[in-house]
Structures are given as structure tokens and as C-alpha cells.
């Protein structure tokens, strides 16, 4: 019997195995005295790669909310930001702006996840009963409020400078920068794979069927005795807590946070990734996000090749992203790998 035969059958189990494998490898590599060198010019791949896996956790959580349950959360970045800032404030040591309390980082990470979940519960309790498009506006408003609070309240959030000197455990363990980037990418990929495994288990279970029933027809779901609001609330809080986790690990990787990491751009990026790939399919949303992040990577190189300034180029990239969103909705409403029948859209 070969190794391949002994691999588990299910998608979720395989992803879990892959995730644990990646995490074990990353930890072993970080603990070992071995170092690695990333060839010059390739480090940008690692930077965008890390961002991709962090956003991957965001898009998986968002897909649980929108793709499976039909909750139009257009303020997903707020939970990412709440998680990040909670970790930053609790774990940072002697940051010269904002508050830094200097608690151990694992505690801060747990607190970040819980805080994001609690904020999700508050936003959910207040707005989940609204019609779809008003839910989008209410969540968007929540994100804008939090963003302007982080910019304006300098005593706690450090204003536009943000919070610095957040501990970077991977950096400490890995030693040099190149090794850290590799370890981070592998470790975070493992975490994203574990998220994927957990969510696949959740949505393949009868629980996931109820969520999809809610998306398809709330009234019918309620009439068969399911408490629609409770399910919606749970899906919303799970997504929020996952985003908080993503924000927390991002803070611990980056070592500094400022409001510019948490603009509406993040929400737009994960939404486009999700719609482009095909909502309600965990693999497809990651694929769609990969396309968008690939575009970002490509644009970093393309900027050197065309004679426009960096600001103009940034605008051109945003125009491209906006047009992709418009065109996907118009011509492929189910996304590239999505199933139109499943989503109940015409395409």
C-alpha cells in the first residue's frame, strides 16, 4: 500500500493534513539553525504571497457569510482591523504612539479573535434583520466609523501613525529577514489550509445545508422550524472571528499597524476575489483571490515597464479592479468556478 492510498478521502481531511504538515514544517524550520536566502527580486513574491494567505482567511470567512448564508457584509475589513488593533494594543511594547500594554502575544491573539467575534455579534445583532442592500450599507458604515476612529483617536490607536513595536515572534525565531518571509508564508498557508478544512467540514455538514437554505429562501427555512436569525448570527460571528484572527496574525507578522492597512480597499479586494472565483465554493473563492493578487503582483512589475508615475499606476490598477468587478457581475455572476444553479443566478 503506497502512501497515496493512505491519504484521507475527503477534501476537508486532506486540507487539514496539508495544513498541519505546513505548520509543522514551518515551526521546525524556524526552530532549526538553518537559514534560507531569497534570490534578489523574488522577495516581492513572498510579500504578496503572505498577503494572499492572510486575505485568504478573510475571503473564506466572508464566503461563509455571503456565499453560504447570503449576508451582504460590505464592512468585512472592520473585523480584520479590530483583530489587528486588539493584538497590537495588547502586545506592543513601548510604542511611541497609541497605547501599548506589553502582554504576551498568544494572549493578545486570543483576545483579538474574541474581540472581533464580539464586535461581529454587536454589528450582527443590530443589522442582520435589515434587507440585503441595507445590511451592506450598515456594515460599510461600521467599517467607516471604525476607520475614522482609528485615524482620529490618537491616545489609543495612534492616529495615522498607528501602533509600532508589536512583537514579531516569527522574526525572532527565524533570525534573518529572508528566513522569516519563508517561514511566515509556509506557516500562514498552513493556517489558511486549516481554516479551509474547518469551514469545509462546517458547510458540508447539515449545518451548511441550513445556511444555504437561508440564502435560497428565508421564509421556507423558517417554516421548517429553523431559527433563521440564530444561524445568520452564528455565520456572521464565525466570519468576524476568522477575520479577527487574520488581523491578529497580520499584526504579529508586520510588527506595525496603521489605518492605511485597513481601508475599504481590503473589503473590495476580498469581495472581488470571492465573486470572481465563485461564491459559495471554498476553493473557487481562494482561486478568485489568487487571480486578483496575481494582478497586484503583475502590476508591481508592469509599473517598471510603462512610463507613468507610481500614483498614476496605482489609479490604473484600481480602474482595472473596478472594471473587473463590474464585468464579473454582468457577464459571470456565478464567478469563474461557481455553479449558477447553486447560486440561483442567471448566467
Amino acid at each position, binding site marked *: 500500500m503506497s502512501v497515496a492510498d493512505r491519504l484521507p478521502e475527503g477534501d476537508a481531511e486532506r486540507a487539514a493534513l496539508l495544513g498541519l504538515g505546513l505548520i509543522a514544517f514551518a515551526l521546525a524550520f524556524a526552530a532549526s539553525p538553518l537559514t534560507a536566502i531569497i534570490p534578489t527580486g523574488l522577495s516581492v513574491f513572498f510579500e504578496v504571497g503572505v498577503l494572499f494567505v492572510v486575505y485568504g482567511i478573510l475571503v473564506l470567512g466572508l464566503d461563509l457569510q455571503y456565499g453560504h448564508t447570503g449576508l451582504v457584509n460590505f464592512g468585512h475589513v472592520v473585523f480584520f482591523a479590530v483583530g489587528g488593533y486588539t493584538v497590537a494594543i495588547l502586545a506592543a511594547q513601548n510604542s511611541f504612539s497609541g497605547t501599548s500594554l506589553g502582554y504576551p502575544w498568544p494572549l493578545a491573539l486570543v483576545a483579538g479573535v474574541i474581540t472581533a467575534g464580539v464586535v461581529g455579534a454587536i454589528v450582527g445583532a443590530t443589522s442582520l434583520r*435589515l434587507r440585503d*442592500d441595507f445590511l451592506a450599507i450598515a456594515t460599510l458604515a*461600521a467599517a467607516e466609523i471604525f476607520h475614522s476612529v482609528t485615524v482620529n483617536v490618537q491616545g489609543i490607536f495612534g492616529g495615522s501613525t498607528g501602533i509600532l513595536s508589536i512583537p514579531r515572534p516569527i522574526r525572532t525565531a527565524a533570525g534573518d529577514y529572508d528566513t522569516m518571509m519563508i517561514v511566515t508564508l509556509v506557516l500562514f498557508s498552513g493556517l489558511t489550509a486549516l481554516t479551509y478544512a474547518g469551514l469545509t467540514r462546517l458547510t458540508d455538514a447539515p449545518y451548511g445545508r441550513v445556511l444555504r437554505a437561508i440564502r435560497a429562501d428565508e421564509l421556507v427555512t423558517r417554516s421548517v422550524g429553523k431559527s433563521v436569525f440564530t444561524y445568520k448570527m452564528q455565520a456572521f460571528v464565525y466570519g468576524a472571528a476568522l477575520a479577527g484572527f487574520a488581523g491578529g496574525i497580520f499584526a504579529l507578522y508586520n510588527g506595525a499597524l496603521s489605518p492605511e492597512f485597513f481601508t475599504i480597499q481590503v473589503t473590495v479586494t476580498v469581495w472581488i476575489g470571492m465573486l470572481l472565483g465563485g461564491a459559495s465554493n471554498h476553493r473557487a473563492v481562494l482561486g478568485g483571490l489568487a487571480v486578483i493578487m496575481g494582478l497586484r503582483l503583475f502590476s508591481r512589475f508592469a509599473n517598471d515597464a510603462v512610463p507613468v508615475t507610481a500614483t498614476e499606476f496605482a489609479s490604473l490598477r484600481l480602474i482595472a479592479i473596478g472594471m473587473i468587478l463590474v464585468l464579473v457581475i454582468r457577464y459571470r455572476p456565478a464567478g469563474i468556478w461557481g455553479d449558477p444553479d447553486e447560486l440561483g443566478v442567471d448566467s
Partner: protein
Amino acid sequence: MGLAQNIVFGLVTGSYIAIAAIGFTLIYGIVDMINFAYGEYLTIGAFVGFLAAGLLPLPAAVLVAMVGGGVVSLALAWLFFTPINETGPVPMLLTSIGLGLVLRNVIRIFAGGSARYYDTTTETFRTQGIPEVPVGSFDLVGDVYVTSEHLVVVGCAVAVFLVIHGLLTRTDVGIAMRAMGDSEDLARVRGIDTQFIRNSVWILAGVLAGLAGVLVGIQTNVNVTTGYAHILQILAAAILGGAGSPYGAIAGAYVIGIVVALSTAFLPSHMTGLSSAMAFVVLVAVLLVKPSGIAGAEVREA
């Protein structure tokens, strides 16, 4: 500065928000979409007006901006929104978010990030000798000044309210718009050309956005985020008033304007940036307490 002065500022802000919020809420009521790109329509109006003001006297430039706004709005609707009219509110909202991103960055490429100022002469009218009624460091009444710009903005707003009221109650097109806002199917049964009415609404909303854009530009300045900076206030005003209701939007806009002005006055100076967030706090509070707004429509579903 006293309370009275801040109320004046609030009324001025409320006036241009109201003009834009009417356009926004008409689109919501009749096309059934939240148009998140509407702020960019204001920006386009402000830029068209600014360019025209270089060649023409200001009142003529305002007219050019209004016509320009109407044309742009109809063209964008024809390109982006009409083809997906049947897909429902969420895809249309998402499309408008994408379109807003595109428009904002197209404008940024052509206009850069710098601010431009309308060349206007202003006169200032002051009251003298109104007694101060201090409460702590804050003054409950106080002297008031009003500039001619303030008067122009408020005057335009009142004129718009009268014209819109006349349009919606006295003309066939306006009555058909209200009918469509109530029930599109019944309107069609009665022989109303719904696509024609939709196009009229797009033009009307564009004209209003053009006017509001120029007024915002005169009050502050013209730059790439002139409109985007106000979209959330416009949205808050429209929802506060009861989405789809023009009269509600007017009332909502003045509430938002005064809340923003007063919170600028009351907040500590290093937190004045929070004043526009106050508009959202009001919005979220309204969605919680009375999601149907001041005037009406039901937005809660479960």
C-alpha cells in the same frame, strides 16, 4: 463660536446634502438600487462647473454643470446599470461600487490630487450685539455671520425643493415616477413606459448631482474626493428620511447637516475628523430604531 453660528453651518451643509440626497433617493425608489457611485457624479459636476466657470459667468457655469451631470448620469446608466436592471439590488450595488472606484481613479489620473478653488467674491453679513449665553466653554447663542455663498447655497436648495415638488405633483413624468416608486408592475399595467421614466430619473438625479457638486465646490474646494467625501452623508440622509422619499431626504439631510456641524463644534479639536463619522452613528441608530426612516418604506425583512 456660538450655537447659532453652528446651526447656520449645519443648514448650509444640509442644503447641499439635501439636493444630492433627493437625486440619490429617487434612484433608490425608482430604479431600486443604492448607487454608491453617486458621490462621483457630484465630483464630475464640480469639475465640469469649474472648467465652465473659466469661460463663462458663474450662473451659466452652474447650468453647464447641471446639463453635464445629467448627460453623464444617463450615459453611465445606459452603459452600466440598465443592462442589469433585472438582477436585483445587490448586484447593482456592487456594480456601483466598482463603477465608483473606476470613476474616482479616472478623475484622479486627469486631475491629479490637488484642490482647485472657484473664484468667487463673497460678502459677509454679521449680527452685532447678540448677548452670549455661555455654558462652560460653549456659547448657547452668540453672534452670527452669514456669507453670500451661504445664502446662494440655501437659496438654490429651496428652489430645488419647489421645482421637485412641482415636478412630482404637477407633471405627467413626475406622477409616473411616483407611481413607479409605489409599484413598478402596476405602473406598467397602466401603460407607463417604465424605461423612459427610469431614464428621466437618471437625468434628473444627474442634474441634481451636478448642482450639488458645484455648490460643494464653492463652499469648500474641487478635488477628486469632493463627492466621495459626502456620499456617506448623502446616503445617511436618504435612509434617515426613508429611502425613496424625496421629502424625507430633505428632512434627513438637514438633520445630518446639523449633527455634523454640532459635533464639529463639540468634539475636542484633535478629534474633529470624527464629525463625519457622526453621520454614520446617526444612520446606524436610525436603522436600529426605525429602519423605515422618517417617511416610510420598509427595509427590514425578518
